[in-house]
């Protein structure tokens, strides 16, 4: 068990591509840290540098207080779960899990005891003699976990370990890994591009974009106070709605509507006043938009909107809308571009809502939950 500390880590690939740019991150002993970001942002690169599978171009990396920059993977006291699992196809589950102990020259009896213990934790006991080819996806995933656990490493590194599972199994394994990590208390760095995994699994979440660290915080704080428009858009599902507007006095004005801001909004954000008379980006999460014809939405000020389509999910309605404002792109390359010409906003309504596709509605908006960003830098105000 140990802390993992990255200081000014950079990675430049052979083709002069800067995959990681001055990454600073410290993962506490026993912490479950999620490294999240859109695909191609350098998550795997960062993880592989920690594992020692990729050279570190510059910077320092300490695991358990030891500088490991020049150490090969085997000396770093880490275990890794690969996205592909990378199970040894010719070995049984027992041999797969026990392989590292065998390389370390541990006697057979000790190996057997330890592997049996782990197999029990992971419910693999009846499969110990099977080959990977005869296992289901979830079972292979567990063997990969077992192979990492057997080493009792200083840190676990996991690269999108659930991405090959179907949605249902993914939810189950998400919970299993989380509770396993709590139980073992081993420092864990978990890479994913799935913001749901990021929000539900980790103690803290590090958001990466284009090789640059954006924010490291608890899921709650990331959700409540994103440092910039990218994090705001990336965290949360569906994504936060981002629009351009002009701040005039206490009003946010866009097209034909105005949103009146309360004094508190300016007190909480001293910088906001300086945008008076200028453009500003404001953001509102779909769950903070309301159907004003319902009891729950009655108390909020409203703006006019046109309903373009509705996804009824049972527990909630995802409502696609068009409002008179210019949508701002958060810069997430993975964002599903479902905003055709017709729709530029998404709201989450209670399932009792009776709004119909094509109708003009008054959209309730909880102004206390607004986020503000600089239109140039996209930094939070």
């Amino acid at each position, binding site marked *: 068990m140990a802390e993992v500390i990255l200081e000014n880590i950079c990675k430049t690939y052979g083709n002069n591509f800067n995959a990681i740019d001055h990454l600073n991150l410290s993962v506490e002993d026993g912490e479950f840290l999620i490294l999240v970001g859109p695909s191609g942002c350098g998550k795997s690169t960062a993880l592989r540098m920690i594992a020692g599978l990729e050279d570190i171009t510059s910077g320092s990396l300490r695991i358990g207080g030891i500088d490991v920059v020049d150490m090969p993977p085997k000396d770093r006291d880490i275990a890794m779960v690969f996205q592909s699992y990378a199970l040894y196809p010719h070995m049984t589950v027992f041999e797969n899990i026990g392989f*590292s102990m065998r*390389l370390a020259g541990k006697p057979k009896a000790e190996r057997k005891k330890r592997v049996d213990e782990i197999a029990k934790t992971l419910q693999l006991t009846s499969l110990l003699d099977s080959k990977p080819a005869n296992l289901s996806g979830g079972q292979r995933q567990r063997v990969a976990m077992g192979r990492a656990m057997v080493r009792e490493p200083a840190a676990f590194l996991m690269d999108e370990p659930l991405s090959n599972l179907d949605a249902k199994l993914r939810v189950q394994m998400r919970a299993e890994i989380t509770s396993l990590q709590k139980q073992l208390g081993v420092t864990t760095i978990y890479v994913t591009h799935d913001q749901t995994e990021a929000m539900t699994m980790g103690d803290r979440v590090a958001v990466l974009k284009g090789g640059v660290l954006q924010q490291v915080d608890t899921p709650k704080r990331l959700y409540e106070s994103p440092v910039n428009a990218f994090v705001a858009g990336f965290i949360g599902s569906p994504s936060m709605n981002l629009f351009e507007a002009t701040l005039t006095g206490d009003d946010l004005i866009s097209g034909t509507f105005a949103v009146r801001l309360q004094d508190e909004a300016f007190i909480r954000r001293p910088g906001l006043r300086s945008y008076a008379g200028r453009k500003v980006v404001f953001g509102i999460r779909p769950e903070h938009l309301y159907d004003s014809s319902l009891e729950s939405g009655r108390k909020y000020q409203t703006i006019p909107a046109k309903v373009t389509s509705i996804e009824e999910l049972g527990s909630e309605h995802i409502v696609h809308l068009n409002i008179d404002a210019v949508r701002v792109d958060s810069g997430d390359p993975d964002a599903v571009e479902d905003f055709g010409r017709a729709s530029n906003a998404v709201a989450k309504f209670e399932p009792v809502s009776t709004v119909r596709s094509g109708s003009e509605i008054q959209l309730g908006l909880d102004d206390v939950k607004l986020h503000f960003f600089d239109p140039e830098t996209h930094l939070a105000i």
Partner: protein
Amino acid sequence: MRKRNSGKDKLITVALHIALAAGLFFAAFPIYWMLSSSFKSNTEIFALPPTILPKAFTLEAYAAILGDPVKLRFFFNSYFVAGAVTVLTVLIALLAAYGFSRFNFRGKGSLNTLIISTQTIPPITLLIPFFGLVVSYGIFDTYVALILTYLVFTLPYAILLMTGYLNTLPRDLDEAVAVDGGTSWTALWRVIVPISLPGIVATSVYTFLLCWNEFLFALTLTKSTSMRTVPIGIQLLMGQHAFEWNQMMAMSVLGSLPLLLIYLVAQRFFLAGMTAGSVK
């Protein structure tokens, strides 16, 4: 599916079958003739008109070969040389291929090109230079001469073949070994080699056949009867006094048997799926 009802289609099918039958006859008849002749007496072979089936079935040709230590030595030589070359080729090709497949080093590209370019040189043009080399190294008429020479011909292709095979194996496996505490050497022998059996078998079969059938270099680089291989042995039966056709055919049959066996055994290794379950 479209129904085949036109007469033209039927005609084409019939013509195709006739062509295939002719092709089969063309390919199979020499083999049949070899088998049939090996069970005849030498006098029957010279009979006119020739007999399709042996009139008097006899094993005398086989007895003559299997009972003659000189001729058995041809078989031993062939096995030994082909076996040694196969083992060496597979070992060296594996190591080279692992390097090409998994490491980046200076000159990798040019080295690869060099290896491919050796394949464009017709072996016969190398006969005289090799003869000169072998004599000057003092290894003329030895196993070493044959083994080294054959390696020159088998290695380039074997390296390309193995590199191609190793490239299909996920690198994650090597990295998993690295994380599990092993070196590249461990990864190669404990994981890559065991799951490379199809590639290794393919390389071995190719190498063994090439050596087993080789005639020209074996003829040139050896001299004494005790160093001769099977193909030369067959030719030696065309003696000064008589053509021992039945023995030549029997020796050909005996010489082909190992190849047949190798094919049968190797076939099951060519089945895909050695890495099934490893990834995804």
